[in-house]
């Protein structure tokens, strides 16, 4: 049991002053931003009710939506694959990417879930995380500690020191703007050198076969638009019926993640193409010629039949529950599953497979449900997981 080892770690984590500083800065910024945004867009609270209904309906029809999305994506010229578990996901991805020397990757928890970067690296392929937080985590050989803010546990001072050690061409200062500039300069050529880009997706519209990727940095836009090939690894719970549903889901996601509106909203429905010469459609104009989607099950379809776990499938991955969880506020992503952090992360670990003994840390205070746009009460799920552990179900 991971919790048994973890218990000894708690003292150390609680004494980590850098962690406390980083968390307090991030949580305070998040709260200020979110309060401002919700004041400006009070209609978001109404929209969440509709989005909850959309997501509930989608989880109920999960297999049907996979089929519809697949059908429409294929019609759009996308190669669609289905992976029943993490191993199959890695195998499919490797088959698609084995001819690549260099890959640029946008932030994706689904890729984390199947350990895709590490797997491709083990096959000798160079893979670069291009989201700043993920890049920092990669440079430090660390774990993403938050689904939206992977480097939430690191104050700027630690980041600068680590980046200066790793990137000898860059001498960043403690000024955050300087850090961003340094990483931008470091990664710039990687985008042009890359043979492929990897991404996840925040939501998929079955009816049009479109995936939506929300981002602020512009890295996902480059990673999915510059290389000749784009491979998207997407959990099947991300599929909703229509494009209009998908936009609503996306809007609630970015609002609760703490953004009034994201810098970029990428909607990708087919490989890059042009019909400018004689109206003959040719693939791969400026963007990727090859576009692959790998739909990943990895326990999701089974969970859609489970009274408690199906609630976790409604999660939009906005991360608000983590900022507001008293345990997370002390331990950051040390609390949760191996990949997915926080209380909801333990529920997701139960879905995707892994040690869920950290369920015993939950306070059952339901603060997560209060701040979650989908009103997911992780404490209810975690109490059930405690029962499963105790009764070895």
């Amino acid at each position: 049991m991971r919790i048994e080892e973890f218990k000894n770690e708690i003292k150390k984590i609680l004494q980590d002053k850098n962690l406390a500083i980083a968390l307090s800065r991030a949580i305070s910024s998040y709260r200020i931003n979110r309060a401002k945004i919700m004041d400006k867009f009070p209609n978001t609270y109404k929209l969440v009710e509709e989005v909850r209904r959309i997501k509930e309906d989608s989880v109920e029809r999960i297999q049907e939506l996979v089929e519809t999305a697949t059908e429409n994506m294929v019609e759009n010229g996308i190669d669609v694959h289905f992976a029943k578990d993490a191993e199959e996901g890695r195998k499919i991805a490797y088959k698609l990417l084995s001819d690549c020397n260099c890959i640029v990757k946008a932030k994706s928890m689904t890729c984390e879930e199947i350990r895709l970067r590490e797997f491709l690296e083990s096959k000798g392929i160079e893979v670069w995380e291009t989201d700043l937080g993920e890049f920092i985590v990669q440079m430090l050989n660390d774990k993403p500690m938050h689904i939206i803010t992977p480097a939430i546990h690191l104050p700027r001072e630690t980041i600068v020191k680590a980046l200066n050690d790793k990137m000898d061409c860059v001498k960043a200062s403690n000024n955050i703007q300087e850090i961003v500039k340094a990483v931008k300069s470091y990664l710039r050529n990687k985008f042009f050198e890359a043979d492929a880009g990897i991404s996840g997706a925040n939501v998929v519209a079955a009816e049009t076969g479109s995936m939506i990727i929300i981002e602020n940095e512009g890295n996902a836009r480059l990673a999915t638009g510059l290389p000749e090939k784009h491979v998207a690894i997407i959990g099947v719970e991300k599929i909703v019926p229509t494009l209009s549903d998908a936009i609503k889901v996306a809007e609630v996601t970015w609002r609760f993640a703490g953004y009034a509106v994201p810098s970029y909203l990428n909607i990708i429905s087919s490989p890059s193409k042009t019909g400018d010469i004689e109206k003959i459609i040719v693939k791969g104009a400026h963007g990727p010629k090859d576009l692959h989607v790998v739909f990943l099950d990895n326990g999701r379809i089974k969970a859609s039949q489970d009274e408690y776990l199906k609630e976790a499938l409604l999660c939009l991955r906005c991360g608000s529950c983590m900022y507001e969880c008293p345990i997370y506020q002390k331990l950051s992503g040390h609390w949760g599953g191996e990949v997915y952090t926080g209380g909801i992360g333990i529920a997701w670990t139960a879905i995707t497979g892994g040690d869920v003994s950290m369920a015993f840390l939950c306070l059952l205070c339901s603060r997560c449900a209060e701040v979650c746009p989908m009103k997911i009460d992780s404490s209810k799920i975690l109490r059930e997981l405690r029962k499963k552990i105790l009764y070895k179900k």
Partner: protein
Amino acid sequence: MTSVKIELQALRIIEKNFYRSGNPLGIKTKSPAEILGISRNECRTILYTGQSYQLMPYVLRILSIIDKFGKLEKLANLFSNLNFSKLIIPKMENRFYSAIRGAANALKNAKIDFGVLLNEPYDGSLYYDLGMDHIVDENEKIIRSEFEKNKVERIITISPHSCYMLKKVYSLDVEVIHIYELISNIKCNKKAVIHDPCILARKLGIVTQLRIFNAVEPENTGKNTLCCGGPIEILFPQLSLQIAKSRGNELISAGLNKIATACPVCLMNFLRAGFDARDILSFFSGDANED
């Protein structure tokens, strides 16, 4: 890897203690009848403490020892092998008992007749939280039998945990009402920063009813309250203490050092973290030292 067994052992001890004494600590607690000086019960309406306020002074003492010596392991052995109540002297028990006395006075002021069970069973909340449902089922039988024996028709709870168990977990054929739903018209002018207990605010929807005193509102209040850290005090005492310190500091940053709450677990954890905390019900106890 030695701590592997500790947690499971702690759970096993908690289980064993139920069969020994009916509660997780394996001790005999004072009944509300003893605390209130009531010798018999002839009322169909019962003031039910669920033993929660009585167990917490022992938990507070145990945690003080853990805080001092840092090891749960040895204490866990004591739980299982010795008659614990004879060794552990409850800490600040009057601060908890004054809540029970205050509850009785507040009900009298509200002209509500009530009795108490002379043999009051534990509410089962810790077993429920830990997912030990076989004990929850056993405990429900004990509670049902005690209620039937005493022809109880209406229960007034004072602990949020008891209220949640009786209202939402057990299927009992009695009316369950939380005390603040009955005494919200009574006011007192005592001033303190209010800490809403999570269960009361979020799971039972009791928020405005608590504001029967001069309550100073902190950050994160009402349904948006932050947990005191108490529910994990036995399994993760250090983490629980740090959460109590953070929340306690947030409370007193509202401008007053005096904290008032409405839950024995919150009260225990704030006291453990060194804050000047009391239960709101204590304001009605008539005990100047405890309000």
